[in-house]
């Protein structure tokens, strides 16, 4: 017995036994892919121990093993608990108490709505070197939670995005307790006022990045913020109380601004932006999407001052004349340009822009419906490095223009052709783009299996494919995809109603598939769902809305095989209470369920199913009629566990 242990204890035959644990650990450190690291852990006990001793990042999916995991991995620096189902204060505190977490620097608790100030107290106490905490979307979090985090004096990064309960009081505690803050997000914390921002500006002098998007703060906040000398990044999306006067204050301030986002600020004009640029000649990123109505010359002249530094410019929703695009082209170092929904963008305008900006990598021309293949020719000729091209609703383009792009731009990674009316002929040239990762063809109903065959032949790196309403696609097209695009993670086949269980059978060989949308595929049944659930072991989201032939058999398959599932939509499916109950009690990672109009599920069925998964559910969408018939205890329990319910009033209508 002991002989065997000695022989295999060193990790196998040959020289492996000669490697010390530390050396082995360093070798394993260089293994990057999570799947490969998992494989290494399974080799032998020595490999497992070495990997555990060197592991720096951990992502926990369920709360039951949390305590054991925290004790097993002693070198942890980054801890991600955002997907940890059923995590609450008691379990978090208990798991932290036995562990040595002196090295933990970054903790992510995004959407961990079951965690409150008690859990955060325990976290701060257990991790003395805590530098970054992400508490975003913990909608119930408030001042008490902020106070708990204020005890982490070394905190440098904090996200309180969507922590709706945080007010000036909580913010005050944080800024006093964590004076070394460098990055702070208060996005959506609408209780915060100018007073809170003022205190923040007085206390946190090291602040580099600040997000006050959606807050009701006004120009006085910008006056305070303008004193933060190290501030490089400022986001003020949809701050409707801010106007040109505020931007002028910023323009005169002592910040080191590199990136400013004023998208959707309806009281900001190009005049205000001009005065902002005046004071900050080193701006690199400027996002003014959906905020400006017209373009003054003062802004364009000041834009010329940024010609060396500006890399990102977004002007979505603006009326642009060709002269404006010519002026923007003066910023020769532009890497990203956003002109989505801009009226008046013509081929000439684009040409005058791209001939000056050959470094462009991201070009957003969504809804620029005047553009033709000539614009694509200009882009192909001048911007050889282009990686992301958004052409949604540019209905005048065709395969000729795409041929030019595909030939001249070998780095193309993402292209959006939604609603462009392209056909299979357009996909032939795109097959040349072997680096293609994202392809969107929504609403292109002429795309057929033939087009998919082109893509499958050489776009082997494809990760995301959107075939929304490409209703000529059949099972054969999916067979080709499964053969040629093995790395697909996200696939949208909504309304491709020719697809049957056979097609889903092909999808079962896509091992990397994580998100699958199958809305209104009326021919698929539990058989097809089984194939997908068995084969696609990494499936985390599946949308089966209006798959009228999917019944309990489909839910049984998901319950049995789709163990990683986190998000599910089964609205309008033919399921009963039994299937629903089994599903919700089996899938331990399932957190988000949309189940509107499950006409065959009784009230008892809903009660039992929801009670079975109560501690795990975070988001539910149900018919509002159920609000009055489900027991109040159940609804209270759901809320207490951090679950939010969206009640909707939709008429029962069958579509095809």
């Amino acid at each position: 017995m002991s002989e065997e242990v000695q022989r295999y204890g060193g990790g196998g035959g040959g020289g492996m036994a000669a490697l010390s644990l530390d050396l082995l650990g360093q070798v394993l450190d260089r293994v990057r892919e999570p799947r490969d690291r998992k494989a290494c852990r399974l080799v032998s006990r020595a490999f497992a121990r070495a990997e555990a001793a060197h592991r720096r990042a951990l992502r926990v999916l369920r709360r039951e093993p949390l305590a054991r995991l925290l004790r097993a991995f002693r070198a942890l620096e980054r801890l991600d608990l955002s997907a940890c189902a059923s995590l609450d204060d008691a379990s978090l505190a208990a798991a932290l108490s036995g562990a040595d977490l002196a090295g933990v620097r970054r903790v992510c608790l995004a959407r961990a709505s079951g965690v409150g100030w008690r859990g955060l107290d325990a976290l701060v106490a257990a991790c003395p070197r805590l530098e970054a905490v992400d508490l975003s979307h913990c909608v119930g979090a408030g001042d008490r939670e902020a106070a708990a985090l204020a005890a982490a004096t070394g905190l440098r990064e904090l996200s309180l995005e969507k922590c709706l309960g945080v007010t000036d009081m909580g913010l005050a505690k944080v800024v006093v307790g964590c004076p070394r803050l460098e990055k702070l997000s208060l996005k959506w914390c609408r209780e915060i006022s100018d007073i809170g921002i003022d205190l923040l500006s007085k206390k946190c002098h090291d602040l580099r990045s600040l997000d006050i998007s959606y807050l009701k703060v006004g120009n006085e906040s910008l006056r305070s913020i303008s004193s933060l000398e190290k501030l490089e990044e400022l986001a003020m999306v949809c701050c409707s109380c801010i106007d040109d006067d505020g931007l002028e204050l910023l323009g005169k301030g002592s910040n080191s601004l590199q990136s400013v986002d004023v998208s959707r600020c309806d009281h900001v004009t190009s005049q205000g932006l001009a005065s902002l640029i005046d004071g900050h000649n080193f701006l690199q990123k400027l996002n003014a999407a959906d905020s400006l109505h017209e373009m003054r010359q003062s802004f364009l002249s000041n834009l010329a001052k940024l010609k060396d530094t500006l890399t990102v410019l977004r002007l979505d929703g603006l009326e642009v004349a060709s002269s404006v695009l010519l002026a923007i082209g003066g910023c020769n170092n532009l890497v990203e340009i956003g002109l989505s929904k801009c009226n008046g963008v013509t081929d000439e305008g684009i040409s005058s822009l791209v001939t000056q900006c050959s470094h462009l990598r991201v070009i957003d021309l969504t809804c620029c419906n005047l553009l033709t293949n000539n614009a694509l020719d200009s882009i192909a000729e001048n911007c050889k490095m282009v990686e992301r091209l958004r052409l949604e609703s540019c209905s005048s383009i065709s395969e000729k223009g795409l041929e030019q792009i595909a030939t001249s731009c070998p780095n193309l990674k993402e292209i959006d052709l939604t609603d462009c009316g392209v056909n299979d002929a357009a996909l032939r040239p795109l097959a040349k783009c072997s680096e293609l990762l994202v392809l969107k063809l929504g609403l292109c109903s002429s795309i057929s299996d033939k087009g998919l065959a082109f893509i499958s032949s050489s776009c082997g790196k494809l990760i995301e494919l959107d075939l929304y309403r490409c209703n000529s696609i059949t099972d054969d097209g999916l067979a080709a995809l499964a053969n040629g695009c093995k790395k697909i993670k996200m696939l949208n086949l909504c309304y491709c109603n020719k697809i049957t269980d056979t097609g889903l059978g092909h999808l079962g060989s896509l091992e990397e598939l994580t998100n699958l949308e199958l809305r209104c595929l009326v021919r698929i049944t539990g058989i097809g769902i089984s194939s997908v659930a068995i084969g696609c072991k990494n499936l985390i989201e599946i949308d089966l809305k209006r798959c009228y032939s999917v019944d309990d058999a489909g839910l049984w398959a998901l319950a049995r095989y789709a163990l990683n599932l986190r998000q599910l939509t089964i609205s309008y499916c033919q399921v009963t209470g039994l299937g629903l109950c089994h599903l919700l009690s089996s899938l331990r990672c399932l957190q988000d369920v949309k189940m509107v109009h499950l006409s065959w599920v009784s009230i008892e069925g809903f009660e039992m199913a929801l009670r079975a998964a109560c501690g795990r559910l975070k988001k539910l969408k149900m018919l509002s009629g159920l609000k009055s018939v489900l027991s109040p205890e159940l609804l209270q329990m759901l809320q207490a566990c951090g679950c939010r319910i969206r009640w909707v009033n939709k008429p029962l209508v069958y579509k095809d």
Partner: protein
Amino acid sequence: MVFMAELVGPRVYSCCNCRNHVCLHDDIISKAFQGRNGRAFLFSHAMNVVVGAKEDRQLMTGLHTVADIYCNDCRELLGWKYERAYEETQKYKEGKFIFEKSKIVKENW
């Protein structure tokens, strides 16, 4: 991407020109319509719009009586309202509103 944005009230769309609230995301019936200039959505309700004169129009799906809708603040043309449909399969559109994707912006989400 994986999770929807958390809500602070219903998700509202605004007029692209003046940010007047004109429709709600929950009222979307279909995202697969064609407007004058590109993609459009069918909504069950609209608010703060002025409905223009009725006229007969030959659309891709057949003959309809429609009335253009304008933002009641700035009079920007946003789409149209279906007043009558003449084929049985198209009747479900009656009383509903088309908003062009390029004319509406997300307001608070």
